[in-house]
């Protein structure tokens, strides 16, 4: 199934005003009706937690209400509807999108992707011995740069059963596991992208179920640093980073947020195709970060598998 990646994440929040300020300061553009867009039109949507138009909340503290995937075309939507209708309700909403749930209870949406194609340069780097990427007399450091998130990259869930959750996305929606933390969960990419992951799942006890973090791709490591510094200078508090992950190789910087989860900047994630063989490692600081400027030994809670697992 040609699912491209997350088009939008929808939250039912406690503090609309704080979230509006936060998402604007993060660098997204407020386009009205609670929608905050990256440059390619992917978005975060915030509504009041009491908004009756939202899917019901999970039974936990999470404020994430829906993950909306963008797909290639109407044919893919029809295929998803046929597949998921085999064992669960699939609603066709008035805007033509589909709505259903995954096997953990997270509400999913599917729509023909709103992503606009971008034509922008990546960060250019020169190194001795390598062909020149940034030309003579072109300055690399721009103190006044105002980097903008380019596209919604990935979302990370806490799930009570990583094996069951992985099987749903693999068997029903055609996601591929690119790497895995042993006993914790998979990094997965849908068929329509080469990105190392658009979904990562971490097994935790059921009362933690929800969104751990989500992130937008930036134009390069310098933009991650500069956008993160912009957040620090506005008084926001870093959660983890800046640093560089091992699985996915993406540069990262996480910030706490009023959305009840962390929000990240990332850049330069690995790309993969069918020839890639998934790696596996124990989760921990050593396997999560190549290097880090603010050390964090433990960055996510994990938990044992639920009892009586089939």
């Amino acid at each position, binding site marked *: 199934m040609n699912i491209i990646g997350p088009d939008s994440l929808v939250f039912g929040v*406690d*503090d609309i*005003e*704080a979230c509006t300020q*936060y998402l604007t300061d993060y660098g997204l553009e407020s386009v009205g009706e609670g929608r905050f867009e990256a440059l390619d039109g992917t978005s975060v949507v915030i509504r009041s937690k009491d908004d009756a138009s939202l899917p019901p909340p999970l039974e*936990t*503290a*999470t*404020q994430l209400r829906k993950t909306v995937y963008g797909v290639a075309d109407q044919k893919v939507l029809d295929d998803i509807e046929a597949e998921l209708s085999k064992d669960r309700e699939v609603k066709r909403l008035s805007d033509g999108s589909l709505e259903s749930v995954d096997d953990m209870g997270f509400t999913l949406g599917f729509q023909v992707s709103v992503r606009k194609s971008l034509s922008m340069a990546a960060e250019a780097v020169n190194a001795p011995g390598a062909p020149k990427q940034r030309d003579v007399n072109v300055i690399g450091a721009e103190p006044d740069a105002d980097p903008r998130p380019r596209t919604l990259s990935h979302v990370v869930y*806490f799930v009570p059963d990583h094996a069951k959750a992985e099987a749903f996305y693999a068997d029903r929606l055609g996601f591929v596991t690119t790497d895995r933390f042993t006993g914790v969960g998979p990094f997965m990419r849908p068929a329509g992208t080469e990105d190392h992951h658009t979904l990562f799942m971490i097994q*935790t006890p059921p*009362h*933690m179920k*929800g969104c*751990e973090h989500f992130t937008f791709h930036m134009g390069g490591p310098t933009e991650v640093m500069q956008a993160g510094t912009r957040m620090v200078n*506005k*008084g*926001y*508090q870093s*959660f983890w980073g800046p640093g560089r992950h091992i699985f996915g190789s993406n540069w990262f910087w996480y*910030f*706490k*947020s*009023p959305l*009840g*989860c*962390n929000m990240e900047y990332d850049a330069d994630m690995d790309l993969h195709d069918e020839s890639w063989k998934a790696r596996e490692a124990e989760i921990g600081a050593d396997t999560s970060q190549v290097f880090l400027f*603010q*050390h*964090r*030994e*433990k*960055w996510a*809670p994990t938990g044992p598998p639920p009892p009586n697992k089939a």
Partner: protein
Amino acid sequence: MGLMFLCYLDDLSDREARGFDPWQEGRDSVFVVRKGDSVYGYFDSCPHLEGMPLPWRKDAYLDAAGQEIVCAAHGARFNIVSGACFIGPCKGQSLTPVPLTFSEDGRILARLEELTITPGRAD
């Protein structure tokens, strides 16, 4: 000196929280919340990731209505009076209280000599 001056009761409005850095570490490690005429003090450290401060920006310890303490990392919510987490990753655990005392002229003081632990540090 076992008593550390934090602020005056009058500095806080009802349902207002504020963080402090009594050990001069460069970031807040304790916070107080006023509820009515009572004030409650806690270490700024979420039980589910020891050493992780709670707020997403300075002093943002409460939900929008000022009813609950919230950790911005993963959304845990705590009772202001008891410090107990009732929903979220550390459900069933509690914030670590900082004992407070109040002077006759309205100062809020932390009784540091009674602390048997130091704040968990992640960095």
